[in-house]
Every structure is written in C-alpha cells, then in structure tokens.
C-alpha cells in the first residue's frame, strides 16, 4: 500500500510539473479535492493521466459575475418528505464576493461551464465509494455550516417546506419573490474604534474610509473570508447591523487572528503604533512622515509613489519620481506660473535655494527689494498654493 501511494505521489508530482509549465496551478495535487475527481485510474501517469471527461480546458478558475449567474435554482433532485428548495443563487453569489468567492460552494471550479454537483456527489447514500459525501450530504454541509452560525438553528423547515396533504409550493411565485433580491449596498463606516485588553493603550482606531479611498484597497482585500455573521447575528439583537460604530467595540477573535487582519501591511511588533490611550487621528502624511503632501500629491493613491506596497521612506527630491524634470527641460508652466523672458534662462537654484522646491522661493540673489509672491517672475495662469 505504502509503495502504491508513494508511486501515486511521484506521478502526481510529474503531472503537476507538467501543468506548471503551462503556467497553471503549480501544486494541483495539493488541492483539497480527491485525485479520483479528475483521474479514473489508481495510478495516473504522464502518458496516461486517465482523465475523467469534464469541461476542463486548463486547470484555471472561472469567476462569473453574480449578475450573470442564475438568479434562482430549484433543488429537487432529492425531493422526498419535502417540497423542492427554491435557492436564491444570485444573492448568494453576490454575498460570496466577500466570503471566498464562487469556490465557497463550487469548490471544484474549472474553466468552462460550472459542473453540477451530482457529477461528483452521488445521489445514492448506499454506495461503494464513500470518499465524497453524497449529494444530500454535500448540499447540507454547504448550506447549514453558514446558516446555523447566524440563525443558530439546524431545523429542516428553514429551507424545506413540508409536503403535507399534498400541498405544493408555487414555484413561480417563489421565484418572483426572491429572484431579483440583491444584497442592499453595504454602508461603509468611517472609523471603527476597537477596545482591546492591552494595558498600555486600550484603543485601536481603524479608519475604514482611509483604507478604501486613500490606500485604495478593495473590499475583498480584507473581507475575503467573512461570513454573514460578521454583520448579521440573529441571536444578538444589538449586532453589527445596528451598530453605528460610535462606541468602541470588542472583537471576538483570538489575538493572532486579530493581528492577522492588519499584519499583511502593517508591522505589528511595535504595539504602540496602533494601540493608543485615545482615539487616534486619521492618517496624515505630513505628521507621520514630515513631508506634507501638496495639492497634486494628495490626489494620488499611495502605491503611485510607494511601489510594490512598500511604505518606506522615499527620496523627496522631485527628480526621484519626475525623471524628466531636469534643468533646461522642465516646463515651469505646470506650476501655474509662466516665467517671463528675463527669468526663463536662470538656474533653478537661483530662486529655489538648495533646490528645495517646497520652501518659498527667494528673489534676493538678484533683486534687493522684491519678494515672492508679492512680485512675480512671470505670468500667473492659475492660483498657486504653497
């Protein structure tokens, strides 16, 4: 047996490297799917991978948009005591964008048409090969793990209507009811203050809007594994839904989990960077880095300058980013001031001492009684703010 499995492993490795050359998932044998999902035989080889025929062009993943996905699915393969389940697919697809994407349910996500569940999950419970759960098991594992977290129930009638005295549900009416439902737009909080157990700084202030607007993060950058209960918990009436983030809140997460949310971008080794006694002010480039952003720079997202998400100190000479702003080439017009004839041929440093363009320029090098901005070395075409 050991020999067989090691042989299997070697083969899988070979195939995986084959896939790797095609620039596909390099470790496909480590995926959480059973080898038998794709390979018919026990020992697939490079020459004979004995692949099961399914719509697999490459081992790539496909992400249809929720809007293009079916709005409602009728689950009735296993109809017995209960009426068919009318499953609001689209709203679930939409919500899944914040909680793991299509693969949350379509965990075997190929390029091409979505496989239906019963391709791998047998509709029979009594069967020889019990490695995959049967269809009934697979459906329920998929649905109830989430649903029971937020409604704290595991009853059947939440989803199934009981077939009593031959009553049939009106499927068309159901579809009309839930077919076009979409999740209401999520209102974004400005800031959230977290109350922590850390003695030397109880409060951590998180500016949500800064992260999305200034730092340019997508919702899914952080909310990729959220569950409905992150916002809705039916047991707890005072839940996140009604919480207006005006009071410090406590996170019900293990310490490592809490820090993981920030540590992808922030250093979490220095506690007092985030933990303060009071509510912290929003991020200010001038205060934090001693280099205040002027009007032009304020409009940029961080990664425009801090490439590769590295928030380290940059050289603040103009030329370090604006490569073509060299002496003689720089067009002074873009500052809003067109230099007149007398001034065009001067060196930059004649007015901007030490090439420090942030500071007020001087006229003293040539003129005795002139000063900027009262006197101007040319024509102002728009108002220049220092």
């Amino acid at each position, binding site marked *: 047996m050991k020999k067989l499995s090691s042989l299997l492993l070697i083969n899988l490795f070979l195939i995986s490297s084959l896939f790797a050359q095609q620039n596909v998932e390099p470790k496909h044998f480590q995926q959480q799917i059973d080898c038998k999902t794709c390979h018919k035989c026990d020992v697939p080889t490079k020459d004979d991978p004995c692949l099961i025929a399914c719509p697999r062009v490459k081992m790539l993943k496909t992400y249809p948009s929720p809007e293009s996905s079916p709005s409602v699915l009728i689950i009735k393969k296993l109809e017995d005591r209960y009426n068919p389940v009318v499953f609001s697919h689209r709203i679930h697809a939409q919500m899944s964008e914040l909680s793991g994407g299509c693969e949350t349910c379509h965990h075997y996500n190929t390029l091409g048409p979505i496989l239906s569940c019963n391709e791998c999950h047998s509709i029979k419970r009594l069967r020889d090969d019990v490695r995959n759960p049967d269809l*009934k098991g697979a459906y329920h594992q998929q649905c109830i793990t989430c649903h029971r*977290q937020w409604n704290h129930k595991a009853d059947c009638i939440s989803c199934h209507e009981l077939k009593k005295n031959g009553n049939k549900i009106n499927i068309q009416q159901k579809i009309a009811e839930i077919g076009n439902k979409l999740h209401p737009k999520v209102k974004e909080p400005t800031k959230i203050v977290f109350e922590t157990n850390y003695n030397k700084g109880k409060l951590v202030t998180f500016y949500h809007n800064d992260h999305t607007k200034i730092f340019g993060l997508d919702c899914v950058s952080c909310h990729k594994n959220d569950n409905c209960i992150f916002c809705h918990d039916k047991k707890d009436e005072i839940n996140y839904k009604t919480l207006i983030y005006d009071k410090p809140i406590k996170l019900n997460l293990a310490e490592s989990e809490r820090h993981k949310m920030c540590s992808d971008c922030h250093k979490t080794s220095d506690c007092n960077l985030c933990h303060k006694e009071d509510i912290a002010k929003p991020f200010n480039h001038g205060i934090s880095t001693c280099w205040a952003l002027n009007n032009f720079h304020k409009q940029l997202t961080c990664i425009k300058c801090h490439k590769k998400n590295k928030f380290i100190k940059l050289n603040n000479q103009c030329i370090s980013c604006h490569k073509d702003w060299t002496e003689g080439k720089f067009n002074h017009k873009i500052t809003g001031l067109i230099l007149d004839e007398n001034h065009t041929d001067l060196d930059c440093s004649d007015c901007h001492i030490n090439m420090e363009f942030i500071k007020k320029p001087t006229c003293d090098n040539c003129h005795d009684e002139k000063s900027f901005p009262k006197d101007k070395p040319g024509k102002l075409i728009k108002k220049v703010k220092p």
Partner: protein
Amino acid sequence: MDRRNFLKAAAIACTAAIPAKDLKANEKFKIDEDRVGVLVDTTICIGCRNCEWACKKAHNLSTEPLEKYSNREVFENKRRPNNKALTVVNQFYNPKNSQLPIDVKVQCMHCDEPACVSACIVHAITKHKEGPVTWDSTMCIGCRYCMVACPFQIPAFEYDKALQPKIMKCDFCIDRQKEGKLPACVEICPTETLTFGKRKDLIEIARDRIKRKPNRYSNHILGEHEVGGTSWLYLAGQDFSKLDFPKLVSDPAPGVTESIQHGIFAYFIPPIALYALLGGIMWINKNKSGEE
C-alpha cells in the same frame, strides 16, 4: 484488602463460579475483514437530531414528530443513550468558533472485542463477524454485567419496568442491514456526518481527511485502536476527552475490570455479586422451564 481489590476478587470469584463465557472460546470466531462500520465526523454534525428520531422510528420506540427535534434546549444537559433512545446527540462548546458548537452523536460503538459480550454470562450478547454487536432479549437474565463492563457506558436498563426489564442498546440496525438498507440514522442524516462503509475503507477516508485538513481535525481516529478497535469510528477537531469520551487504552476491555471508572461502576459493583448468584439461579430456572 481494600474495597477495590475485594470487589475485584469477588467479581473473579463469581465469574469463576458460574458458567461465564470463556474469552479463549472466542479464538475460533473469525471477524470479517470486510466488516462494516460508520465514520462519525463530529466536525460536520449540525446537531439536528434527525438521527435520534429515525432510530426511534426504526425500533418502534415512542417519539415526538420530527419537527419537534429542532428544539435546541435539550443540549443544556448532557444525555446518555437509554432504553427510550438508543442514540443521543450532545452539544459542546467549540473553542475554535463559538458560533459553531460541536455536536456529538453517541451510541454503541460495536467493539471488535466487546467487553459486554465477554461479561454476559448467558451469551445474550453476540458479536457478528460483519460488525454489529446485538442483544437477545429471550436469553437476557437482567444481571446488568454488560452495563458495568462496557467502557462507553452504553447498555441501558429499563428501570421503569418491574417485570422482565430489558437491556437496550443500538443494534446497528442489523435487521435493516439484512434487508440491504442502511442503518436508519445513517440514512436520514442530512449532512452525511455518518458515513457507512467497510471499516477498513472508513479508516483510509478518515486518515485522508486529517491529512487534507490538519487544522480542522485532531490527528486521532477514535475507535481505530481503542479497546481493540470499534466498528464505529470518530473524527473530531479537538481532544476526545473534551467531548466526554472516556480515556481508553488500545487493549480490549477485559470484561469487568477496575479500569472502568464511571459512576455506574461504583454504584453497581456491590449488588453485582448478588446479581451473579441470582443470575445463575435464574438461568438454571429458565432452562428448566424451557424443558417443561
């Protein structure tokens, strides 16, 4: 001689004095390589208790309608299988996610080397080579040796019946299996928490699940080795002792032993010597009446 040793000696004396089942006689019994079992994955179970209902239905025990089983309040107390319910589901706090409590179905484990069988002095309990351990009411004399011997506290006694009380426990739905059906609980379970199959396949599957999701499972298949192996196997996300499973060694439980340390043991040992004696007399009488 302290109390424990005295009891042990008494128990040995009793078992020697009456026609107890000789463990060695078991040697001829060959257990089936392909015997069946059930893998209970407690990380999947949702505590819907449909299995409890189905079990009662299949055994003609009185039950409320299935819809009543969604009541979660029953989980406030820990329950044991008894004569009214051959299987029960208990709920435990999940330290990994407080919103997802751990639900654990309990029933007879159908041990490969069952202590209850060894303990039964009249051979009323049988280990079938296909896996199940069943109990025959026509032979039982009500001595309750099996209750004391079982390392999982499974056999239960009908306390409310004065006349001919029965011992009850899960019979692995042997009658249904003979008809080619699944055990009732396995058939109804919505999530397939209960996987029915050959025991050796189930062990492979369990190992595979642990390997694929090492964070989800603790690296232990309960019943693979415990008390010599059991037909029902368990997977869990944490230590089994936190889910009220007894700590067990891999040696088969040798009938009545001092290593069984649950409440019933302490409570029942004194009457046991007496029961054994009475049991012997009843057994003889029973055989006599059979001859008449």
